[in-house]
Protein backbone atom coordinates (compact mmCIF):
# COMPACT_ATOMS: atom_id res chain seq x y z
CA UNK A 1 0.00 0.00 0.00
CA UNK A 2 1.81 3.07 -1.22
CA UNK A 3 -0.54 5.95 -0.59
CA UNK A 4 0.89 9.43 -0.26
CA UNK A 5 -0.45 11.58 2.54
CA UNK A 6 0.41 15.24 2.15
CA UNK A 7 -0.61 16.45 5.56
CA UNK A 8 -1.18 20.20 5.57
CA UNK A 9 2.26 21.24 4.44
CA UNK A 10 3.86 24.61 3.96
CA UNK A 11 7.20 25.28 2.34
CA UNK A 12 9.15 28.42 3.09
CA UNK A 13 12.46 28.84 1.30
CA UNK A 14 15.11 30.74 3.22
CA UNK A 15 13.11 30.55 6.44
CA UNK A 16 14.77 32.51 9.20
CA UNK A 17 16.82 34.39 6.63
CA UNK A 18 16.46 37.95 5.42
CA UNK A 19 14.07 37.11 2.59
CA UNK A 20 11.90 34.12 3.38
CA UNK A 21 9.73 33.00 0.49
CA UNK A 22 6.58 30.96 0.94
CA UNK A 23 6.44 28.66 -2.08
CA UNK A 24 3.62 26.43 -0.83
CA UNK A 25 1.00 27.11 1.80
CA UNK A 26 -1.34 24.66 3.55
CA UNK A 27 -1.45 21.94 0.92
CA UNK A 28 -3.43 18.97 2.10
CA UNK A 29 -3.94 16.04 -0.23
CA UNK A 30 -4.04 12.25 -0.30
CA UNK A 31 -3.00 10.12 -3.25
CA UNK A 32 -4.49 6.66 -3.04
CA UNK A 33 -2.50 3.49 -3.55
CA UNK A 34 -1.95 2.90 -7.28
CA UNK A 35 -3.63 6.10 -8.24
CA UNK A 36 -2.30 8.19 -11.11
CA UNK A 37 -2.33 11.91 -10.26
CA UNK A 38 -1.52 14.69 -12.70
CA UNK A 39 -0.48 18.05 -11.33
CA UNK A 40 -0.97 21.17 -13.44
CA UNK A 41 -0.65 24.83 -12.60
CA UNK A 42 0.97 28.05 -13.73
CA UNK A 43 4.75 28.29 -13.75
CA UNK A 44 6.16 28.92 -10.30
CA UNK A 45 3.15 27.61 -8.36
CA UNK A 46 5.29 25.02 -6.61
CA UNK A 47 4.64 21.79 -8.51
CA UNK A 48 8.27 20.80 -8.58
CA UNK A 49 8.74 21.86 -4.98
CA UNK A 50 5.81 19.71 -3.89
CA UNK A 51 7.15 16.69 -5.77
CA UNK A 52 10.65 17.18 -4.42
CA UNK A 53 9.28 17.19 -0.89
CA UNK A 54 7.50 13.89 -1.55
CA UNK A 55 10.78 12.56 -2.98
CA UNK A 56 12.59 13.69 0.17
CA UNK A 57 14.91 15.94 -1.84
CA UNK A 58 13.53 19.04 -0.13
CA UNK A 59 12.54 19.55 3.50
CA UNK A 60 9.05 20.46 4.62
CA UNK A 61 8.65 23.65 6.66
CA UNK A 62 5.31 22.77 8.32
CA UNK A 63 3.19 19.67 8.26
CA UNK A 64 4.28 16.20 7.28
CA UNK A 65 4.37 13.92 4.26
CA UNK A 66 3.86 10.20 4.73
CA UNK A 67 4.34 7.53 2.12
CA UNK A 68 3.03 4.06 2.88
CA UNK A 69 2.41 5.27 6.42
CA UNK A 70 5.98 6.34 7.07
CA UNK A 71 7.04 10.00 7.37
CA UNK A 72 9.37 11.06 4.56
CA UNK A 73 12.82 11.80 5.96
CA UNK A 74 14.94 11.75 2.81
CA UNK A 75 15.15 10.22 -0.65
CA UNK A 76 14.75 6.49 -1.10
CA UNK A 77 14.14 3.82 -3.74
CA UNK A 78 10.48 3.53 -2.69
CA UNK A 79 9.96 6.90 -4.43
CA UNK A 80 11.81 6.89 -7.75
CA UNK A 81 11.93 10.20 -9.61
CA UNK A 82 11.88 10.67 -13.38
CA UNK A 83 13.42 14.08 -13.99
CA UNK A 84 12.61 16.42 -16.83
CA UNK A 85 16.32 16.40 -17.67
CA UNK A 86 16.29 12.57 -17.89
CA UNK A 87 19.32 12.46 -15.55
CA UNK A 88 20.73 9.28 -17.03
CA UNK A 89 24.31 8.49 -16.03
CA UNK A 90 26.27 9.42 -19.17
CA UNK A 91 29.10 7.00 -18.38
CA UNK A 92 26.80 4.03 -17.95
CA UNK A 93 25.24 1.97 -20.70
CA UNK A 94 21.48 1.62 -21.15
CA UNK A 95 21.64 -1.69 -19.28
CA UNK A 96 23.65 -0.25 -16.39
CA UNK A 97 21.32 2.73 -16.15
CA UNK A 98 18.21 0.56 -16.03
CA UNK A 99 19.53 -1.70 -13.27
CA UNK A 100 20.96 1.15 -11.16
CA UNK A 101 18.10 1.17 -8.67
CA UNK A 102 17.73 -2.62 -8.72
CA UNK A 103 21.33 -2.93 -7.55
CA UNK A 104 20.53 -0.69 -4.57
CA UNK A 105 17.92 -3.23 -3.61
CA UNK A 106 20.30 -6.17 -4.07
CA UNK A 107 18.62 -7.78 -7.09
CA UNK A 108 20.46 -10.81 -8.49
CA UNK A 109 22.15 -10.83 -11.89
CA UNK A 110 19.39 -13.01 -13.31
CA UNK A 111 16.68 -10.66 -12.04
CA UNK A 112 18.50 -7.67 -13.49
CA UNK A 113 18.96 -9.28 -16.90
CA UNK A 114 15.32 -10.22 -16.92
CA UNK A 115 14.22 -6.69 -16.10
CA UNK A 116 16.45 -5.14 -18.77
CA UNK A 117 14.98 -7.49 -21.34
CA UNK A 118 11.45 -6.90 -20.10
CA UNK A 119 11.57 -3.10 -20.16
CA UNK A 120 13.51 -2.76 -23.39
CA UNK A 121 10.95 -5.00 -25.08
CA UNK A 122 8.10 -3.05 -23.50
CA UNK A 123 9.64 0.24 -24.62
CA UNK A 124 10.41 -1.16 -28.08
CA UNK A 125 14.12 -0.59 -27.59
CA UNK A 126 15.56 -4.07 -28.06
CA UNK A 127 19.23 -4.17 -28.98
CA UNK A 128 20.20 -0.90 -27.29
CA UNK A 129 21.48 -2.54 -24.06
CA UNK A 130 25.10 -1.60 -24.62
CA UNK A 131 24.60 1.87 -26.04
CA UNK A 132 25.42 5.01 -24.06
CA UNK A 133 22.76 7.69 -23.47
CA UNK A 134 24.37 10.17 -25.89
CA UNK A 135 23.91 7.60 -28.66
CA UNK A 136 20.13 7.67 -28.16
CA UNK A 137 17.47 10.15 -29.20
CA UNK A 138 15.77 12.27 -26.54
CA UNK A 139 12.67 10.07 -26.62
CA UNK A 140 14.75 6.94 -26.18
CA UNK A 141 16.68 8.50 -23.31
CA UNK A 142 13.45 9.36 -21.57
CA UNK A 143 12.21 5.79 -22.02
CA UNK A 144 15.40 4.53 -20.40
CA UNK A 145 14.88 6.95 -17.51
CA UNK A 146 11.34 5.66 -17.08
CA UNK A 147 12.55 2.06 -17.32
CA UNK A 148 15.16 2.79 -14.66
CA UNK A 149 12.47 4.05 -12.30
CA UNK A 150 10.02 1.24 -13.04
CA UNK A 151 12.74 -1.42 -12.68
CA UNK A 152 13.57 -0.11 -9.21
CA UNK A 153 10.05 -1.25 -8.39
CA UNK A 154 9.12 1.77 -6.29
CA UNK A 155 5.78 2.04 -4.58
CA UNK A 156 5.61 5.62 -5.77
CA UNK A 157 6.71 7.04 -9.09
CA UNK A 158 7.32 10.79 -9.29
CA UNK A 159 7.57 12.38 -12.72
CA UNK A 160 8.38 16.04 -13.31
CA UNK A 161 7.41 17.04 -16.84
CA UNK A 162 9.05 13.92 -18.20
CA UNK A 163 7.89 14.56 -21.75
CA UNK A 164 8.52 18.30 -21.74
CA UNK A 165 11.62 18.09 -23.89
CA UNK A 166 10.14 15.79 -26.53
CA UNK A 167 8.70 16.63 -29.92
CA UNK A 168 4.94 16.30 -30.33
CA UNK A 169 5.08 12.96 -32.09
CA UNK A 170 7.45 11.26 -29.67
CA UNK A 171 5.44 12.73 -26.85
CA UNK A 172 2.25 11.08 -28.10
CA UNK A 173 3.99 7.73 -28.38
CA UNK A 174 5.38 8.10 -24.88
CA UNK A 175 1.98 9.01 -23.47
CA UNK A 176 0.40 5.91 -24.97
CA UNK A 177 3.29 3.81 -23.72
CA UNK A 178 2.96 5.22 -20.24
CA UNK A 179 -0.74 4.34 -20.20
CA UNK A 180 0.10 0.81 -21.33
CA UNK A 181 2.96 0.35 -18.87
CA UNK A 182 0.83 1.74 -16.06
CA UNK A 183 -1.98 -0.66 -16.89
CA UNK A 184 0.34 -3.70 -16.81
CA UNK A 185 2.22 -2.40 -13.84
CA UNK A 186 0.11 0.00 -11.76
CA UNK A 187 1.95 2.28 -9.36
CA UNK A 188 1.11 5.31 -7.32
CA UNK A 189 2.11 8.10 -9.68
CA UNK A 190 2.48 11.84 -9.31
CA UNK A 191 2.89 13.31 -12.77
CA UNK A 192 3.65 17.01 -13.29
CA UNK A 193 2.91 18.51 -16.67
CA UNK A 194 2.21 21.78 -18.45
CA UNK A 195 -0.01 20.03 -20.98
CA UNK A 196 -3.67 19.95 -20.03
CA UNK A 197 -4.36 17.21 -22.62
CA UNK A 198 -1.62 15.07 -21.18
CA UNK A 199 -2.85 15.62 -17.64
CA UNK A 200 -6.40 14.58 -18.48
CA UNK A 201 -5.41 11.68 -20.72
CA UNK A 202 -3.09 10.05 -18.19
CA UNK A 203 -4.57 10.72 -14.79
CA UNK A 204 -7.19 9.31 -12.50
CA UNK A 205 -7.39 12.74 -10.93
CA UNK A 206 -6.02 16.09 -12.05
CA UNK A 207 -4.77 18.44 -9.34
CA UNK A 208 -4.94 22.07 -10.45
CA UNK A 209 -2.63 24.29 -8.44
CA UNK A 210 -2.63 28.04 -8.00
CA UNK A 211 0.13 30.40 -6.91
CA UNK A 212 1.05 33.25 -4.57
CA UNK A 213 1.62 31.19 -2.57
CA UNK A 214 1.27 27.73 -4.10
CA UNK A 215 -1.94 25.96 -3.15
CA UNK A 216 -4.39 23.39 -4.51
CA UNK A 217 -7.14 25.10 -6.48
CA UNK A 218 -9.26 22.14 -7.37
CA UNK A 219 -9.09 18.41 -7.92
CA UNK A 220 -10.89 16.97 -10.94
CA UNK A 221 -11.85 13.34 -11.19
CA UNK A 222 -11.11 11.63 -14.49
CA UNK A 223 -11.00 7.97 -13.50
CA UNK A 224 -14.75 7.45 -13.64
CA UNK A 225 -15.04 8.78 -17.17
CA UNK A 226 -11.91 6.95 -18.31
CA UNK A 227 -13.19 3.61 -17.03
CA UNK A 228 -16.70 4.14 -18.32
CA UNK A 229 -15.45 5.01 -21.81
CA UNK A 230 -12.47 2.62 -21.82
CA UNK A 231 -9.96 5.32 -22.83
CA UNK A 232 -6.95 3.17 -22.24
CA UNK A 233 -7.97 0.84 -25.03
CA UNK A 234 -8.00 3.54 -27.68
CA UNK A 235 -5.31 5.62 -29.37
CA UNK A 236 -4.74 8.99 -27.78
CA UNK A 237 -6.00 10.90 -30.86
CA UNK A 238 -9.37 9.19 -30.68
CA UNK A 239 -9.68 9.77 -26.96
CA UNK A 240 -8.99 13.46 -27.42
CA UNK A 241 -11.92 13.80 -29.78
CA UNK A 242 -14.45 12.39 -27.36
CA UNK A 243 -16.82 14.94 -25.90
CA UNK A 244 -16.20 13.62 -22.40
CA UNK A 245 -12.50 14.35 -22.87
CA UNK A 246 -12.99 17.83 -24.28
CA UNK A 247 -15.39 18.58 -21.46
CA UNK A 248 -12.82 17.66 -18.79
CA UNK A 249 -10.10 19.45 -20.65
CA UNK A 250 -12.23 22.59 -20.81
CA UNK A 251 -12.82 22.39 -17.09
CA UNK A 252 -9.10 22.26 -16.32
CA UNK A 253 -8.40 25.02 -18.83
CA UNK A 254 -10.93 27.34 -17.25
CA UNK A 255 -9.37 26.86 -13.83
CA UNK A 256 -5.95 27.64 -15.21
CA UNK A 257 -7.17 30.67 -17.09
CA UNK A 258 -8.76 32.09 -13.95
CA UNK A 259 -5.35 31.66 -12.38
CA UNK A 260 -3.68 33.71 -15.06
CA UNK A 261 -6.44 36.30 -14.69
CA UNK A 262 -5.69 36.63 -10.97
CA UNK A 263 -2.21 37.75 -11.80
CA UNK A 264 -2.83 40.13 -14.62
Amino acid at each position, binding site marked *: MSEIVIDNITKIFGEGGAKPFTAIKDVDFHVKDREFISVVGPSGCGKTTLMRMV*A*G*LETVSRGEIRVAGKPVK*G*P*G*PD*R*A*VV*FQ*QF*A*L*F*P*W*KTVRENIV*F*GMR*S*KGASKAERDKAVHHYLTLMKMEGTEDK*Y*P*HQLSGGMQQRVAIA*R*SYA*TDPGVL*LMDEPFGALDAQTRTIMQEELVRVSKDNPRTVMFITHSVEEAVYLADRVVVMGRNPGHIREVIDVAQTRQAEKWSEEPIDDVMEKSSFTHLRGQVWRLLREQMGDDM
Partner: protein
Amino acid sequence: MKRRIPLLAYSIASLVLFFGGWQAVVSAGLVSSFVLPSPIDVIDRTITMMIRPFAGALLWEHALSSIGRFLGGFGLAAAIGIPLGLMMGRFRLLEDIVTPLFEGYRYVAPLAWVPFAALWFGTGIGGAIMVIFTGAFAPCVINAYRGARLVDRHLIEAAQTHGASELRIGWEVLLPGALPSIVAGLRISAGLGWQSLIGAELIVVSSGIGYVMIQGQSNLSPETVVTSMLVIGLVGLAIDFGLRAAETAVRRKWEGQ
Protein backbone atom coordinates in the same frame (compact mmCIF):
# COMPACT_ATOMS: atom_id res chain seq x y z
CA MET B 1 49.40 16.93 -41.97
CA LYS B 2 51.35 19.27 -44.26
CA ARG B 3 52.07 21.73 -41.46
CA ARG B 4 53.64 19.14 -39.20
CA ILE B 5 56.79 18.69 -41.24
CA PRO B 6 57.94 22.33 -41.16
CA LEU B 7 57.02 22.53 -37.44
CA LEU B 8 59.14 19.49 -36.66
CA ALA B 9 61.93 21.02 -38.71
CA TYR B 10 61.81 24.16 -36.56
CA SER B 11 62.00 22.10 -33.40
CA ILE B 12 64.99 20.16 -34.65
CA ALA B 13 66.70 23.30 -35.87
CA SER B 14 66.23 24.96 -32.49
CA LEU B 15 67.72 21.95 -30.68
CA VAL B 16 70.69 21.76 -33.08
CA LEU B 17 71.27 25.47 -32.67
CA PHE B 18 71.08 25.24 -28.89
CA PHE B 19 73.45 22.30 -28.51
CA GLY B 20 75.71 23.53 -31.30
CA GLY B 21 75.93 26.96 -29.71
CA TRP B 22 76.54 25.44 -26.33
CA GLN B 23 79.34 23.24 -27.69
CA ALA B 24 80.84 26.18 -29.59
CA VAL B 25 80.88 28.42 -26.53
CA VAL B 26 82.76 25.81 -24.50
CA SER B 27 85.10 24.71 -27.36
CA ALA B 28 86.04 28.27 -28.12
CA GLY B 29 87.15 28.58 -24.53
CA LEU B 30 84.74 31.43 -23.79
CA VAL B 31 83.86 29.75 -20.51
CA SER B 32 85.86 27.18 -18.64
CA SER B 33 84.54 23.61 -19.03
CA PHE B 34 84.69 23.59 -15.28
CA VAL B 35 81.94 26.15 -15.09
CA LEU B 36 79.94 24.82 -18.02
CA PRO B 37 80.67 21.34 -19.35
CA SER B 38 80.25 20.82 -23.09
CA PRO B 39 77.46 18.63 -24.47
CA ILE B 40 80.05 16.06 -25.53
CA ASP B 41 81.43 15.89 -21.98
CA VAL B 42 77.90 15.42 -20.72
CA ILE B 43 77.10 12.61 -23.16
CA ASP B 44 80.37 10.96 -22.27
CA ARG B 45 79.56 11.28 -18.57
CA THR B 46 76.06 9.92 -19.10
CA ILE B 47 77.38 6.83 -20.85
CA THR B 48 79.95 6.29 -18.12
CA MET B 49 77.31 6.56 -15.41
CA MET B 50 75.18 4.05 -17.19
CA ILE B 51 77.89 1.39 -17.11
CA ARG B 52 79.81 2.31 -13.99
CA PRO B 53 78.18 2.91 -10.61
CA PHE B 54 78.32 6.43 -9.21
CA ALA B 55 77.30 7.28 -5.67
CA GLY B 56 76.55 3.61 -5.09
CA ALA B 57 74.45 2.76 -8.14
CA LEU B 58 74.09 2.98 -11.91
CA LEU B 59 72.35 5.99 -13.40
CA TRP B 60 69.15 4.14 -14.23
CA GLU B 61 69.04 2.60 -10.76
CA HIS B 62 69.15 6.09 -9.29
CA ALA B 63 66.44 7.11 -11.70
CA LEU B 64 64.32 4.11 -10.73
CA SER B 65 64.69 4.82 -7.04
CA SER B 66 63.54 8.41 -7.66
CA ILE B 67 60.60 7.20 -9.73
CA GLY B 68 59.67 4.70 -7.02
CA ARG B 69 59.58 7.43 -4.38
CA PHE B 70 57.67 9.64 -6.73
CA LEU B 71 55.04 6.98 -7.34
CA GLY B 72 54.74 6.39 -3.60
CA GLY B 73 54.16 10.04 -2.75
CA PHE B 74 52.07 10.81 -5.79
CA GLY B 75 49.95 7.68 -5.33
CA LEU B 76 49.37 8.54 -1.68
CA ALA B 77 48.40 12.12 -2.59
CA ALA B 78 45.91 10.85 -5.17
CA ALA B 79 44.54 8.11 -2.92
CA ILE B 80 43.83 10.58 -0.09
CA GLY B 81 43.32 13.79 -2.06
CA ILE B 82 40.76 12.59 -4.58
CA PRO B 83 38.29 11.06 -2.09
CA LEU B 84 38.76 14.05 0.21
CA GLY B 85 38.08 16.48 -2.63
CA LEU B 86 35.01 14.55 -3.74
CA MET B 87 33.64 14.47 -0.22
CA MET B 88 34.25 18.20 0.19
CA GLY B 89 32.28 18.72 -3.00
CA ARG B 90 29.47 16.59 -1.63
CA PHE B 91 29.25 17.72 1.98
CA ARG B 92 29.17 21.39 2.78
CA LEU B 93 30.15 20.80 6.40
CA LEU B 94 33.35 18.99 5.45
CA GLU B 95 34.15 21.77 3.01
CA ASP B 96 33.80 24.34 5.78
CA ILE B 97 35.97 22.31 8.13
CA VAL B 98 38.76 21.52 5.70
CA THR B 99 38.99 24.73 3.68
CA PRO B 100 40.79 27.00 6.20
CA LEU B 101 43.39 24.35 7.02
CA PHE B 102 43.80 23.55 3.39
CA GLU B 103 44.23 27.16 2.30
CA GLY B 104 46.96 27.56 4.92
CA TYR B 105 48.83 24.47 3.83
CA ARG B 106 48.50 25.26 0.13
CA TYR B 107 50.81 28.25 0.22
CA VAL B 108 53.59 26.55 2.12
CA ALA B 109 56.16 25.43 -0.47
CA PRO B 110 56.75 21.65 -0.46
CA LEU B 111 60.41 22.17 0.38
CA ALA B 112 59.45 23.97 3.56
CA TRP B 113 58.22 20.60 4.79
CA VAL B 114 61.63 19.03 4.44
CA PRO B 115 62.75 19.65 8.04
CA PHE B 116 59.56 18.16 9.42
CA ALA B 117 59.66 15.32 6.92
CA ALA B 118 63.13 14.43 8.09
CA LEU B 119 62.11 14.79 11.70
CA TRP B 120 58.97 12.67 11.47
CA PHE B 121 59.85 10.09 8.86
CA GLY B 122 63.61 10.12 8.80
CA THR B 123 65.87 10.46 5.83
CA GLY B 124 64.79 7.18 4.27
CA ILE B 125 61.92 6.73 1.89
CA GLY B 126 59.31 8.03 4.38
CA GLY B 127 60.68 11.57 4.50
CA ALA B 128 60.95 11.80 0.73
CA ILE B 129 57.42 10.49 0.23
CA MET B 130 56.07 13.06 2.64
CA VAL B 131 57.72 15.89 0.73
CA ILE B 132 56.32 14.66 -2.60
CA PHE B 133 52.96 14.21 -0.95
CA THR B 134 52.89 17.81 0.24
CA GLY B 135 53.70 18.94 -3.29
CA ALA B 136 51.20 16.72 -5.07
CA PHE B 137 48.30 16.80 -2.63
CA ALA B 138 46.71 20.21 -3.30
CA PRO B 139 45.85 19.83 -7.00
CA CYS B 140 44.36 16.38 -6.30
CA VAL B 141 42.03 17.84 -3.68
CA ILE B 142 41.17 21.03 -5.54
CA ASN B 143 40.39 19.41 -8.85
CA ALA B 144 38.39 16.56 -7.35
CA TYR B 145 36.44 19.15 -5.34
CA ARG B 146 35.77 21.36 -8.35
CA GLY B 147 34.89 18.37 -10.49
CA ALA B 148 32.45 17.10 -7.89
CA ARG B 149 30.81 20.52 -7.59
CA LEU B 150 30.26 20.59 -11.32
CA VAL B 151 28.52 17.21 -11.44
CA ASP B 152 24.91 17.75 -12.50
CA ARG B 153 22.83 17.91 -9.31
CA HIS B 154 20.12 15.89 -10.99
CA LEU B 155 22.46 12.93 -11.40
CA ILE B 156 23.14 12.89 -7.68
CA GLU B 157 19.43 13.18 -6.95
CA ALA B 158 18.62 10.45 -9.46
CA ALA B 159 21.11 8.22 -7.65
CA GLN B 160 19.58 9.09 -4.28
CA THR B 161 16.01 8.46 -5.34
CA HIS B 162 17.11 5.12 -6.77
CA GLY B 163 18.47 4.08 -3.42
CA ALA B 164 22.23 4.57 -3.86
CA SER B 165 24.35 4.76 -0.70
CA GLU B 166 26.76 7.66 -0.26
CA LEU B 167 29.62 5.30 -1.09
CA ARG B 168 27.96 4.35 -4.35
CA ILE B 169 27.20 7.98 -5.17
CA GLY B 170 30.88 8.77 -4.68
CA TRP B 171 32.11 5.84 -6.71
CA GLU B 172 29.53 5.71 -9.50
CA VAL B 173 28.44 9.33 -9.85
CA LEU B 174 30.91 11.84 -8.39
CA LEU B 175 34.12 10.07 -9.42
CA PRO B 176 33.19 9.49 -13.08
CA GLY B 177 31.52 12.89 -13.27
CA ALA B 178 34.60 14.63 -11.91
CA LEU B 179 37.08 12.48 -13.84
CA PRO B 180 38.09 15.01 -16.52
CA SER B 181 38.83 17.57 -13.84
CA ILE B 182 40.61 14.98 -11.68
CA VAL B 183 42.91 13.84 -14.46
CA ALA B 184 43.78 17.46 -15.27
CA GLY B 185 44.60 17.88 -11.57
CA LEU B 186 46.75 14.75 -11.53
CA ARG B 187 48.86 16.22 -14.28
CA ILE B 188 49.56 19.37 -12.29
CA SER B 189 50.02 17.26 -9.21
CA ALA B 190 52.59 14.99 -10.87
CA GLY B 191 54.61 17.96 -12.08
CA LEU B 192 54.71 19.54 -8.62
CA GLY B 193 55.38 16.17 -6.99
CA TRP B 194 58.30 15.40 -9.25
CA GLN B 195 59.83 18.82 -8.65
CA SER B 196 59.46 18.52 -4.89
CA LEU B 197 61.00 15.05 -5.00
CA ILE B 198 64.21 16.36 -6.51
CA GLY B 199 64.25 19.05 -3.87
CA ALA B 200 63.81 16.44 -1.19
CA GLU B 201 66.55 14.26 -2.59
CA LEU B 202 68.95 17.15 -2.56
CA ILE B 203 68.52 17.25 1.18
CA VAL B 204 67.28 14.13 2.82
CA VAL B 205 68.13 10.89 1.05
CA SER B 206 71.17 8.98 -0.14
CA SER B 207 70.09 7.67 -3.50
CA GLY B 208 68.15 8.97 -6.47
CA ILE B 209 68.76 11.56 -9.11
CA GLY B 210 68.72 14.53 -6.78
CA TYR B 211 71.32 12.81 -4.62
CA VAL B 212 73.49 12.14 -7.70
CA MET B 213 73.32 15.81 -8.44
CA ILE B 214 74.54 16.79 -4.98
CA GLN B 215 77.33 14.23 -5.18
CA GLY B 216 78.30 15.58 -8.59
CA GLN B 217 78.49 19.03 -7.11
CA SER B 218 80.66 18.02 -4.16
CA ASN B 219 82.92 15.94 -6.43
CA LEU B 220 83.38 19.06 -8.53
CA SER B 221 81.94 17.25 -11.54
CA PRO B 222 79.65 19.70 -13.34
CA GLU B 223 78.95 17.20 -16.14
CA THR B 224 77.40 14.91 -13.53
CA VAL B 225 75.16 17.75 -12.41
CA VAL B 226 74.06 18.44 -15.96
CA THR B 227 73.48 14.74 -16.63
CA SER B 228 71.17 14.64 -13.59
CA MET B 229 69.33 17.68 -14.84
CA LEU B 230 68.78 15.98 -18.16
CA VAL B 231 67.46 12.84 -16.52
CA ILE B 232 65.15 14.89 -14.28
CA GLY B 233 63.83 16.74 -17.30
CA LEU B 234 63.32 13.62 -19.37
CA VAL B 235 61.55 11.65 -16.65
CA GLY B 236 59.36 14.68 -15.88
CA LEU B 237 58.53 14.95 -19.55
CA ALA B 238 57.66 11.25 -19.75
CA ILE B 239 55.36 11.51 -16.71
CA ASP B 240 53.62 14.53 -18.17
CA PHE B 241 53.34 12.85 -21.54
CA GLY B 242 51.65 9.80 -20.02
CA LEU B 243 49.19 11.90 -18.01
CA ARG B 244 48.47 14.16 -20.93
CA ALA B 245 47.56 11.09 -22.97
CA ALA B 246 45.24 9.99 -20.15
CA GLU B 247 43.72 13.46 -20.02
CA THR B 248 43.05 13.52 -23.74
CA ALA B 249 41.58 10.03 -23.67
CA VAL B 250 39.22 10.91 -20.79
CA ARG B 251 38.23 14.20 -22.34
CA ARG B 252 37.51 12.61 -25.68
CA LYS B 253 35.45 9.83 -24.12
CA TRP B 254 33.52 12.23 -21.85
CA GLU B 255 32.92 14.94 -24.39
CA GLY B 256 31.07 12.58 -26.67
CA GLN B 257 28.49 12.16 -23.92
